[in-house]
C-alpha cells in the first residue's frame, strides 16, 4: 500500500510537470523556438501571483484570474517586441536571447524580492487530504493540480485540432512561407502561440508556488523538468506531454522513497532510459 501511495503522489505531481512542459512543447512545435527562459517565466508568474494575493488579499487560486491574462499579455508583447526578431533559419539566436532573458528575469526578481524563499498560502488546501481507503490518501492540492493539468492538456489538444487558431498554428509550423500565402501573418501567429504558452505557464507558476517554496533561482530546474517531460512524451500529442510529466513524477517519487537524495536523479535516469530506448518519445510526431 505504501508503494501505491508513492506512485499515486508521483502521478499527481506529474500533472504539474506536464504543465511546465505543455507551454514549452507548444512553442517549440509552432516556431521551433527553444525557450530557455521558460522556467524563469514560471517563477515570474509565481511572484506575480504573490504580489496579487498580498495586494488584494485573495486566495492564490483566485489570483489566476489576474495572473493568466497578465502573463498572456507579457507573452504576446515579448514575442512581437523581441523574439520575432530572432527567428530565422538559425536556431542559435533565439536560444541565446532567451538565455539572456533568463538571466535578466532571475536578477530582476532578485533585486525586487531578494533571495528569500516565498510561498503562497492557499487557506489549507495545501495540507488537506482525501482518504481513498486504508493507507491510501491523496492531497487536495495535488488533486486540483492534476485535474487542472488534464483540463489544460485537453483544452490545448482541442484548440490545436478543432479550432481555426489551432489550424493556423499547425499550418505555420508545417510551412511558414505557405502559411503567409494563405494570409497568415506568421509574426502574429507566433505572438498568439507565446501568449497561450505563458497563459499555461501562469497556471503552472501559481500551482508551483502553492505547493512549494520558491525563490528567484529555481527557474532553470523547472525548465529541465519541462524539457524532460516534453522529450519523453514526444512532440506528436499534448497527451504525450502529460504521459512524460507523469513518468517523471513517478520516477522522482520512487527515487525519493529509496533515498531522499535520489529524487531528482531518479527523474533524470528515467529520462535517459526513455531517450535510449525510444528517442522519438512515446507519442512521436507523425511524418507525412
Amino acid at each position, binding site marked *: 500500500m505504501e508503494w501505491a501511495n508513492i506512485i499515486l503522489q508521483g502521478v499527481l505531481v506529474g500533472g504539474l510537470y506536464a504543465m511546465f512542459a505543455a507551454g514549452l512543447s507548444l512553442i517549440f512545435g509552432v516556431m521551433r523556438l527553444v525557450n530557455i527562459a521558460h522556467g524563469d517565466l514560471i517563477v515570474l508568474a509565481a511572484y506575480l501571483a504573490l504580489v496579487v494575493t498580498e495586494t488584494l488579499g485573495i486566495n492564490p487560486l483566485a489570483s489566476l484570474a489576474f495572473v493568466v491574462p497578465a502573463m498572456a499579455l507579457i507573452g504576446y508583447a515579448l514575442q512581437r517586441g523581441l523574439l520575432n526578431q530572432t527567428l530565422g533559419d538559425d536556431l542559435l539566436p533565439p536560444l541565446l536571447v532567451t538565455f539572456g532573458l533568463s538571466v535578466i528575469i532571475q536578477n530582476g526578481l532578485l533585486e525586487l524580492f531578494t533571495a528569500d524563499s516565498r510561498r503562497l498560502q492557499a487557506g489549507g488546501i495545501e495540507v488537506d487530504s482525501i482518504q481513498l481507503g486504508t493507507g491510501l490518501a491523496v492531497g487536495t492540492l495535488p488533486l486540483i493540480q492534476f485535474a487542472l493539468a488534464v483540463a489544460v492538456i485537453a483544452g490545448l489538444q482541442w484548440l490545436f485540432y478543432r479550432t481555426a487558431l489551432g489550424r*493556423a498554428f499547425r499550418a505555420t*509550423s*508545417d510551412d511558414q512561407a505557405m502559411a*503567409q500565402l*494563405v494570409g497568415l501573418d506568421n509574426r502574429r501567429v507566433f505572438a498568439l502561440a507565446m501568449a497561450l504558452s505563458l497563459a499555461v505557464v501562469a497556471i503552472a507558476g501559481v500551482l508551483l508556488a502553492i505547493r512549494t517554496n520558491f525563490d528567484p533561482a529555481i527557474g532553470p530546474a523547472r525548465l529541465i523538468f519541462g524539457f524532460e517531460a516534453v522529450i519523453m512524451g514526444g512532440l506528436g500529442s499534448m497527451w504525450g506531454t502529460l504521459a512524460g510529466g507523469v513518468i517523471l513524477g513517478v520516477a522522482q517519487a520512487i527515487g525519493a522513497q529509496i533515498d531522499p537524495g535520489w529524487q531528482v536523479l531518479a527523474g533524470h535516469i528515467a529520462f535517459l532510459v526513455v531517450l535510449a530506448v525510444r528517442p522519438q518519445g512515446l507519442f512521436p510526431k507523425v511524418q*507525412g
Partner: protein
Amino acid sequence: MPDTLLEVRSLDAFYGDFQALFGVSLEVAAGEVVAVIGANGAGKSTLLNSIAGLVHARGDAILLAGEPVGGVPAYGMAARGVALVPEGRRLFPSLTVEENLLIGGQLGRPGPWNLPRVYDLFPVLAQRRHAPSPSLSGGQQQMVAIGRALMSNPKLLLCDEISLGLAPIVVRDIYGRLPTILSEGLSLVIVEQDIVQALAAANRVYCLQEGRVVLTGTAGSLTREAISAAYFGV
C-alpha cells in the same frame, strides 16, 4: 488595355547577390489568362513569387488595380486577393484535406468560392475530405492546392507548374476545370513548361529567358519557331 488588374513594371528580383529577374514588365487584364513560359531557371517562379509577396520587390514595381504593392508581405497580398498555387503544391502535411481548404479561406474574403463549390469542382476531394493530405495522389494533391487558393476568393490566381509530375490524363482533367474557375471572373497567370498546354489555355503569352522577357504576344499569333527561338535563345 481595359481594366488592368496587375501591372509589373521593370521588376528586378534578387536572391541575395544573385539577380533572378532583370526589368521584367507584364500586364494582366481583368478576366484574362496569361501564360509565362520559359526554360528551367528562366525566372518564372521568381516572377510569381514576387507578385505573391514572397520575394521582395520595389514598391512601384508591382501594381494591383493601380495600387503600388511591391514590398507588401505575402499575407498582405493574400488579403488583397492574390492567391498562389505554388510549385510542388506545398499542402500542409499535418492538416487534412478539408483543413487545407479551410485554411485557404481563413481570411474570409467574400466571393463565390466556398467548401461545397470546391467539392463540386473536384468531387474526389469530397470523398477524401478527412484524409491526411500527404496520403493523396499527386493529382488529388494538386486539386487541393488549387482549391485552397480558390477558397480565398482571389481576384488574381497564380499557378506555378500545375502539370509538373502529373500523368498527362490528370493534367488534362485539371486543365479541363479551368473554364469553370474562369467563369467566376478572376484573372489567371499560369507558369508552365508544357508549352502546348499553356498556349491552349492562355490569351496572351510571355516568354522568359535568363530573367528577361524575350517574347510576348497573343497565344494565337506566336509561331512555334518564334517560341523555340525565345525559349532556347538560339
